[in-house]
């Protein structure tokens, strides 16, 4: 089986790493499965509940602008009628969704995933994202679709980390910008 190649494999090789004193740790999540579930207004509640419960017994689908950990997956509400399901191990076994109910779409290779952590992670991200990332405003489980250097990106907070989904074709240039700005805080590549 062929191995997939990251969009960042050339960029990250060139970045100097600050070691343990870093204010920001940046890590690419190399391999993941990302599936989009889109429903119709009249089927949204049923489809989202079925998917959430399929991921975790008793699981509930997240509200707009929220992300929830369900079983081995994350369920992200990226648009009013659209969810992303993210897993890092095996592809998820999803319930059958007919065209009358909605649509599923594999977009695993459309995004590059970054984890940004460390005491200055929010400071770094706010160089580019017009988002209020103060703990009270963007707490655990918060998700936002925003724009970095005019490019649409998705950001969410998981524990002490921020996660960013970057369009793959822009991932190298956006990561390069992040790495440049992160040098002032001390950057460690995870």
């Amino acid at each position: 089986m062929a191995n997939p190649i990251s969009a960042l494999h050339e960029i990250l090789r060139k970045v100097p790493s600050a070691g343990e004193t870093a204010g920001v740790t940046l890590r690419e999540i190399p391999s993941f499965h990302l599936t989009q579930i889109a429903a119709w207004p009249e089927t949204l509640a049923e489809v989202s509940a079925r998917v959430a419960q399929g991921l975790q017994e008793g699981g509930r689908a997240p509200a707009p602008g929220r992300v929830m950990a369900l079983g081995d997956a994350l369920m992200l509400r990226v648009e009013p009628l659209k969810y992303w399901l993210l897993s890092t191990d095996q592809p998820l076994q999803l319930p059958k969704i007919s065209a009358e109910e909605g649509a599923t779409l594999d977009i695993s290779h459309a995004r590059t995933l970054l984890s940004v952590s460390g005491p200055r992670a929010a400071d770094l991200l706010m160089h580019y994202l017009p988002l209020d990332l103060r703990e009270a405003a963007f707490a655990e489980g918060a998700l936002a679709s925003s724009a970095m250097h005019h490019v649409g990106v998705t950001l969410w907070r998981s524990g002490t980390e921020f996660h960013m989904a970057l369009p793959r074709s822009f991932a190298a240039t956006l990561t390069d910008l992040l790495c440049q700005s992160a040098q002032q805080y001390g950057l460690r590549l995870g």
Partner: protein
Amino acid sequence: MTARRLSSGGRIDRSQTVTFRWDGKRLQGFAGDTLASALLANNQRIIGRSFKYHRPRGVMSAGVEESGAIVTTGRGARSEPNVKATQQELFEGLVASGQNAWPSVRHDVGAVSGLFSRFFAAGFYYKTFMGLPPFETGRGTGIWMQYEKLIRKAAGMGSASRLPDPDVYDHAHGFCDVLVVGAGPAGLAAALELAQQGRDVVLVEQDFELGGDYLAQSDPQAITRRDTQVAALRAAGVRIMTRTTAFGLYDNGVAGLLERVTDHLASPDASLPRQRFWTMRAGRTVLATGALERFISFGNNDLPGVMTPNAARSYLNRFGVLPGQRIVVATNNDSAYAVAGELAAAGAQVILADARSDAALVAPKGVELRQGLAPFNASGGRGVSGIEFASQQGGAWRVAGREACDLLLVSGGWSPVINLASHLGARPIWDSALACFLPGKTRSDIHMAGSAAGVWQTEACEASGTAVARQVIGADTALPAAGGWQTPIAPLYEVRVPGRRTKAFVDPQHDVTGDDVRLAHQEGFVSVEHLKRYTTLGMATDQGKMGNIIGLAMMAEALGREIPQVGTTRFRPPYTPVAIGALAGRHTGPHAKPLRRTPLHDWNLRQGAVMTDAGLWHRPWYFPHAGEGMAEAYVREATAVRETVGICDVSSLGKIAIQGPDATEFLNRIYTNPFAKLPIGRARYGIMLRDDGIVMDDGTTWRLGESDYLMTTTTTNAGKVMVFLEELLHTRWQDLRVHVTSVSDHWAGVSIAGPKSREVIAPCLEDGEAVTNDNLPFLGVRPVRLKGGIEGLIARISFSGELAYEIYVPSGYGEAMMALLWPQAQAQNGVLYGLEALGALRIEKGHVTGAELDGRMTIDDAGLGKMASPKKTFIGDALRRRPELTDPNRPQLVGVFPKIRSDTFNAGALLTAPGEDSGFGDGWLTAVTHSPALGHWIGIGYIAGGVAAWEGRRVLASDPTRRGPVEVEIVPPIMFDPKGDRMHG
């Protein structure tokens, strides 16, 4: 002026000597100095030269309003012109020099222009040099265009470096509950009160120290108060930003901040940006921006050694510099009394001239008080040496004696800094009792505190800050009243003595005089807006901080009105200059626009690709062999595609997943041609129009399932098409159950084109039979599994006119796909080909791209009218039938050959009949190439009426600015294999 550093006092650190260079001289100051205070301590009198007359100028203030000590700092690429020495923090190794002078500010040849200054009144240059008699009387500005170069060279400020800026700048976003601008007594009190009430507060201060007016006070209690407040702020968690200017306020609580990160550092950390450009979003904003002391207009009021009393106080108490020994303080208000006393206590001989005769204040200890006197005319060559006084007699000023001095301090009153409130539309309101503008009401959530609200005394400013903070929180708290002087100010803007002509400046930074203002009035420029533009009053880098009110008062007097009736101009951002680099942030050079890389980007580079921009994408342009240039490489590549096989990275094509039970209907409405009966496993070329009937984009759409399509678009229009589809579904066709999702980045795509393409692909597939003609006919689509288990899609479609396929695999497997395909292609003597060869191939076939579908052309113009179905409606169908769009004489797509086949022509050339090559011509060339298949130069373009209208007629490709006319032939647009035998073969 004989300034000297005192042996004690001030907030400078005398244990840390700082060495710097001024105009080539090595000087020393201390940590905590500004460049201005250090220059004063070194008794440097002339720091700058004026804008127009090259008059010597010294330090006039201690802040952002500075109009005299304007210098250039740094060297080479880091040379920074128009820096106010009063704001530049001193650091080891700082290099500063005078500007707008030669050979130096101390001895400036340009000063000769001052001898003719009476001729250089406002508007002089335009009146004199535009339409210069007798050569251009009443017409033209040709001579002016030449003079202007000389005039601009003689006048002006410093020169910017022409080298690329070596520094980096960051953008940043911030959020807070309350933004407090200004860290003087009011700002500190407001920030502390807000923080103690649990608000998340950001406090910004343009200075490098917090404290504002506290820092300039001689009373040790003031510093103690300041230190206590600052410690409490830090303990309360207030986010403090020093060296940060709030340069603009905008709607919804947005403030623009400029943080100077390394401008004060001798050896900054290379990872730090020079400055940060902040967009701060605040729930509420408190403006504690203070007030600026202003001058009075009188003769030679710009001489070195003339400054404001508050500036002298700052130099004395903050920087430990006594700026003069024999000092005259001229005032019309109470604020100068304390300064006079402090200067006298420091050892200076001080005369205090109060224009008021009724001031109730007593003379400070050691100060000689003279009431009823105002400054009329300063004397001195390279610095002030004396002042003639005037007194009011019978309603006019009369000369009333002279006094020698080396420092003249002038206070004409105080102007609250209401600039930021003005940015949000708060109309300034004139307060005649305080002789200043106060901020008017605004609908925005901003609150004025302290002297920015006209409150003059320190304790009252503190109370004002606290009260404003409580109002912000929602308490019903009364604010301290504006004012605070014991004796009212006597408004005084100008002192003129009948029969005596002087050079009296209103706006020293732009050399605008009182006579200029009166001239503007005489010539009918009575509106304050016209006054500003005619005289340039308030248009320098200080934006009128020193001179605006004086100019308004003079215009009011000339008009016989009061100041409120004359009005004032609104202040606009920025409050102080902002470097262009800070606006750009890191979005410069390779990051000027976001760069898109295909999944094969690095692989292409490893194969030697020369890249080019295609929209935001970087795509291979050509793949040169040793010794080849672009011309040789693309011809070789295109030839190989026709003869064997070529592989081209087409990952950048837009790809949109269209899903849902109504997807077919959706496509049928969007495309001009029918999609209702497109079978699963088939692709169809489609054209979509804009609402106005003009072609928007084209591409193939693949039916993958009953309710599942993959639409491809052109590279550059992918975003536009996606937005259009979303808009249609969200606004017009909400009843359609369709989802659209961009999957452009999910797929790595290549085109394998040429007669050997099937031989290249088959060995790479787990089932090589998938690409036989039966299993994959022309416009067929199917899932495919490449060796190594790579799942993908394959379609038999052609842009080159050859037997061709496009294979898409998930992006991460793009390189793995090439590892399979490229060796097979090499075995067939195949090539990699780039955009240039792709262009040559498509021009030969008459296929259109964005060059032809340029937002002006109809589907008929492009020769694709047969694709507009008469049996259904579609977007743009109605308006494409407008008479203007169906005129048979509209330009139509054609091919173009040179009449003499060895000739060439350029894209962009006009197509015209001989002798009719003026104006817009009859058509134009959109793209040209050498055709490897035909063996000569060809082009594609549009010409009125199309091929039929030009049969047998002579046509020129007219190109007057590049290579002149070339005779051409108009031919059908499909210039190679018109029946498509190769493509279907």
